[in-house]
């Protein structure tokens, strides 16, 4: 019924290789975009933006970045929090050093700086593999957080050791600082998410993505068929860190406004983003969105139900959340290692045949 390719004739190569080749899928995608850009900004309020939309969008970028590294290239990284911190601090330094330049350029440059740092910490991946590498990336996590905590230059010698975003505008509308309207912050993040998702999607289905997947599936075999592991692994680290850096910059500048590095970009952040990737689905851009949405909504939901409706103390709800997240991770790894994205694929396949069973 839905998702049928029948009757959808392609008359050119570009038609044939578009991102959503099935008509129904394509229209659904346009509708989602339309709603996200043209409807949501008018109806959201402060609570929804700060509790749901901003974290969802920003984590989605981080999850896409990590998914490129873990899901597509097979290099597990636990340094996401540290790389997000690089993005945040790079953005802060740029914002305060060059106030006349647009914040959009700052955020992109922050991504670029994070990419450089990511490549540096990705170098050991050429020698060590699997969870040895996962543990090695923890070095990045701890070292970077310590660096931003201890070297005053990074936080402009402020007395509190925090960084806080000065007010910046895009097209005359403030997007950072206290004056920000909910819809402005939402839209700026949405634009970045949209751009990142398109770039990631096209990178992963092109030559670069195929090289990454070859390295993931078997690096020795990939090397033999002519994939340069040095370039493939380091480019995965660079692209992944670029996205993570952008998300870190947005997380600091647009979402939080003020950041204390050890608290915000600690190791729990690394795990959170990794969980998003696992629950959403390794090696899937859609999965990154699904995972981010799931893990952003779950605590909000639990809090509203347990604390709001049933009157439990907040710490109990927080502990229960830990248990549920942990159990879900295990459950997904056992029952559906490809995550929510696979469930979505199965559902699509079912919808394609519906209402007929075969």
């Amino acid at each position, binding site marked *: 019924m839905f998702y049928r390719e029948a009757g959808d004739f392609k008359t050119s190569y570009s038609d044939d290789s578009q991102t959503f080749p099935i008509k129904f899928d394509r229209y659904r995608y346009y509708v989602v975009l339309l709603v996200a850009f043209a409807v949501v900004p008018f109806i959201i309020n402060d609570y929804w933006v700060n509790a749901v939309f901003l974290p969802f969008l920003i984590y989605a970028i981080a999850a896409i970045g990590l998914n490129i590294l873990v899901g597509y290239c097979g290099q*597990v990284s636990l340094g996401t929090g540290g790389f997000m911190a690089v993005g945040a601090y790079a953005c802060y330094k740029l914002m305060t050093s060059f106030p006349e330049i647009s914040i959009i350029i700052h955020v992109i440059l922050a991504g670029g700086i994070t990419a450089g740092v990511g490549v540096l910490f990705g*170098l*050991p991946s050429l*020698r*060590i593999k*699997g*969870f*040895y590498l*996962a*543990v*090695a990336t*923890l*070095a990045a996590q*701890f*070292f970077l*957080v*310590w660096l931003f*905590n*201890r*070297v005053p230059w990074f936080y402009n010698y402020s007395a509190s050791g925090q960084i806080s975003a000065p007010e910046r505008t895009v097209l005359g509308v403030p997007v950072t600082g206290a004056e920000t309207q909910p819809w402005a912050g939402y839209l700026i993040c949405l634009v970045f998410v949209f751009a990142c998702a398109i770039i990631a999607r096209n990178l992963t289905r092109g030559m670069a993505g195929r090289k990454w997947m070859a390295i993931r599936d*078997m690096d*020795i*075999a990939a090397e*033999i068929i002519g994939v340069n592991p040095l370039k493939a692994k380091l480019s995965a680290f660079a692209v992944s860190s670029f996205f993570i850096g952008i998300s870190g910059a947005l997380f600091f500048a647009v979402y939080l406004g003020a950041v204390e590095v050890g608290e915000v970009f600690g*190791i729990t952040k690394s*795990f959170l983003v*990794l969980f998003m990737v*696992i629950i959403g689905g390794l090696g899937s851009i859609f999965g990154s969105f699904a995972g981010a949405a799931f893990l952003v909504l779950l605590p909000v939901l639990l809090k509203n139900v347990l604390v709001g409706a*049933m*009157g*439990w*103390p907040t*710490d*109990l709800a927080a*502990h*229960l*959340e*830990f*248990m*549920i*997240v*942990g*159990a*879900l*991770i*295990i459950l997904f*790894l*056992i029952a559906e*290692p490809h995550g929510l994205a696979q469930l979505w694929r199965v559902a699509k396949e079912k919808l394609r045949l519906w209402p007929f069973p075969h």
Partner: protein
Amino acid sequence: MPEQLVFATEVFLNGLMAGVLYALVALGFVLIFKASGIFNYAQGVMALFAALTLVGIMEGQVPFAHLINAIFGTEIHHFGWHVPGLVAIILTMVIMVALAWIVNTLIFRHLVNQEPIILFMATIGLAYFLEGFGDIMWGSDIKKLDVGLPQGINLWIDETTFNIFDYGFFIDNLDIVATVVAALLVVALVIFAQYTKQGRAMRAVADDHQAALSVGISLNFIWVMVWSVAGFVALVAGIMWGTKSGVQFSLSLIALKALPVLMLGGFTSIPGAIVGGLVIGVGEKLFEFAIGPLVGGATENWFAYVLALIFLVFRPQGLFGEKIIERV
């Protein structure tokens, strides 16, 4: 002796003691990894859980008191009795064995033959679960653990060194006890692995699951046993660290301290865990002593990781690890 050198010696000795505690945690990792190929990130949380349970039993706390109070509106906290330390330790061990069985049956039996990295992520999930579970069961406030281990400065060492160097070394009694316990534990584990029937079966399983199965070794039994032994090591580590700095959430972070120890020593080697622990314990204390003041201090957070990272680039299998041979 010049003054700086005397200070450095004291720092060195304290580093050795800290290293022993790291090694103690690292041992638990090595055991599970050798026998089942699972890199158990939850080891630190297991130590926390064991310590929480031990305190809970000793104090006669009602398990899940918060949860029960929240649901039924009651006000229960304690049974009102106190259990002596040794009995509580035995009871905790029973719980750890039960936990080992549950973990094996519910989780890792279903993940046999998966890639190591999947198993690793599953243990991260387990760590999260246990963390929440432990807190719900026993409450998340900081608890004091006292099973009668000696604590405080060792006066004998203080006096002796004062007579020799005119400067008394500060060495905690607890660290000395921990060193002795760790040494005993290592000897016991080596004897267990080398000379007992179950220990040999464990090593056989580590070598080759299928071959072990074909000579009649029960994989399930061995896995439960290995997780129980790891639970036992976690309990010992939990007692030591819990006595030192109280039973609290940060106890679970010792797993993060043990990871670089493992990388340095090699994941598959018991001596590696010991040597790695000592190298990192001494290294980070000396580094903090010599370089720390120049760069703003608190280098202990990352020194071990960066050391292990640089080391791994030159020797990917660690100091004592088995050479990694890749076949296509």
